[in-house]
């Protein structure tokens, strides 16, 4: 076979000089797919550059007659997005690492320590994912108020951690299990403690999983809306979704502001994605070969 890339597995079979021409259909395919996916985003960009008068004009594809950045400055300043973005970053910076630490230590125990009832414990955690959040609102509201944690980030993060645990454990346990058990046995024979087995061997090997979870969890926290709107009533402590939703009125929607706001608000998470996607791709392959 003249293929240099196994197109099913995507793994290069043998380094060989390949002609650019052969790859052309592949690239056309990718570009078409990408434009299809990015097309609706065009709406956001065009709308964000239009004033209300222009937005209510006829054609969708019309370029704004007058480019205006007023929506961006309005969203950023009047919509208080700058504050909301800072709050969101703060919450993510605390919640995500703390969550991953707690989840990975539990997943480590379930997946690798040969404890009794490991599967049962795992299933109990898994059930948590199935419970609709909305149904927990009233009891949690009462609880947080009783503990004086209402309107505090400690309280909110506590709740976030709770709802994040099932998913985190599911992901991490799955990946931990793909790491050969022989490693543990060898480490224990070498006199390694459980703690250092976890921190020195398993966690580093699970880098792709941790990076994946980090991306997903950051996004989840960044976009979370239901819980924060119930448990944080202080506007100065809220995050981006609250700011964006205030552009949607009872009888009308400020599409220009909303689009500008959405575009601004995806920048931070995009950066997180770009940084960490490298890790989850690089992480494992090197580790296993070595």
């Amino acid at each position, binding site marked *: 076979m003249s293929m240099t890339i*196994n*197109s099913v*597995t*995507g*793994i*290069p*079979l043998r380094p060989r000089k390949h002609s650019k021409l052969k790859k052309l259909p592949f690239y056309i395919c*990718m570009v078409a*797919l990408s434009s299809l*996916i990015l097309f*609706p985003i065009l*709406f956001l960009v065009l709308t964000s550059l239009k004033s209300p008068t222009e937005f209510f004009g006829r054609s969708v*594809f019309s370029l704004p007659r007058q480019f205006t950045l007023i929506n961006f400055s309005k969203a950023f300043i009047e919509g208080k997005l700058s504050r909301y973005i800072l709050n969101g970053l703060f919450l993510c910076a605390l919640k995500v690492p703390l969550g991953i630490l*707690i*989840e990975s230590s*539990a997943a480590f*125990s379930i997946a690798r*320590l*040969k*404890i*009794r009832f490991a*599967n049962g*414990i795992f*299933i109990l955690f*898994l059930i*948590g*994912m*199935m*419970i*609709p959040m*909305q*149904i927990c609102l*009233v*009891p*949690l509201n009462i*609880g947080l108020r009783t503990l004086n944690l209402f309107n505090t980030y400690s309280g909110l993060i*506590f*709740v976030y*951690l709770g709802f994040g*645990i099932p998913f985190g454990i599911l992901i991490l346990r*799955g*990946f931990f*299990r*793909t790491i050969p058990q022989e490693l543990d046995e060898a480490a224990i024979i070498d006199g390694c403690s*459980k703690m250092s087995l976890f921190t020195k061997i398993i966690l580093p090997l699970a880098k792709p999983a941790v990076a*994946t979870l980090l991306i*997903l969890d950051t996004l989840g926290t960044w976009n979370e*809306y239901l819980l924060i709107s119930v448990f944080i009533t202080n506007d100065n402590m809220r995050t981006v*979704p609250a700011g*964006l939703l205030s552009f949607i009125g009872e009888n009308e*929607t400020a599409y220009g502001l909303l689009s500008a706001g*959405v575009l601004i608000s*995806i920048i931070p*998470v*995009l950066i997180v*994605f770009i940084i960490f*996607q490298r890790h989850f*791709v690089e992480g494992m*392959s090197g580790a*296993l070969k070595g």
Partner: protein
Amino acid sequence: MHSKKNLSGYIFIIPAALIYFTVIVLPAVYSFYLSFFKWNGIGPNRKFVGLNNYYHILFEDVIFERAALNNTIWILLVLTITVGFALSMALLLNRQFRGRTLFRGILYFPYVLSGVMVAIIWTWVYHPQLGLISGFLQLFNLQEYYSSPLAGVKTAFFAIYAAALWQGFGAPMILFLAGLKTIPVELYEAATIDGANRSQTFINITIPMLRETFVIVFATQIISAMKLYDIVYAMTEGGPANRTHTMATWMVRQTFIFANVGKGTSIAVVMVLVLMVVIIPYVMFMAKDTGK
């Protein structure tokens, strides 16, 4: 299995267990208890009605039945189309080629938007007059043949799914990508030396080695399909003619708008029970043997 006492292993679980118990288990148990009452959420008039709420939603409530059917349809769509698409995209992106990072970023991009934002964008895409599709057809004077799929009682739910597919395939794709990275290259090299062809390596190596990833993807996708709420609510509010309700949108309506706390919680309980019946055996079966 292990005669040796291994209590110290549990220490690693304690923080997670404590938080999980307070945040999820306690409120859930309380809600389960409430599902046996007729109650408006306030005040002392809480009447024990046994299984009446369950009887009502399962046998008398047409909208609940539609919602349950919708969730089922959604699960089937997600397991076939979303997962299939995500896996093929992951395989594509797992190749070595120039611009890989860029394409990966683009394909994943919609996932950074929240469900409500996706709903706003896609409502506009489908818009009968001002929308992207109708605007596109207008260029060829074909606009009159377009009718918004969101407006049809039979098509609306599928139209929402298309929007969700656009947004949602990124998450399973990223999981598959991470999973593919865990497959040792040596396995493929050995298989090729043994003369295995592409579909054989795919079936005999890729799929089995992605087993844990499949467990995660299937479980999370089924669960989120069952809890489907925000994109549906923001795109149609359950309409037209209450045809696009899901169990979750109907539960929220019952609990918070109609103040039928008993009915709302019993819908939640049904959701959880159905999920447990589907997910637990699946995960247990897959967890039995790692094949190592």
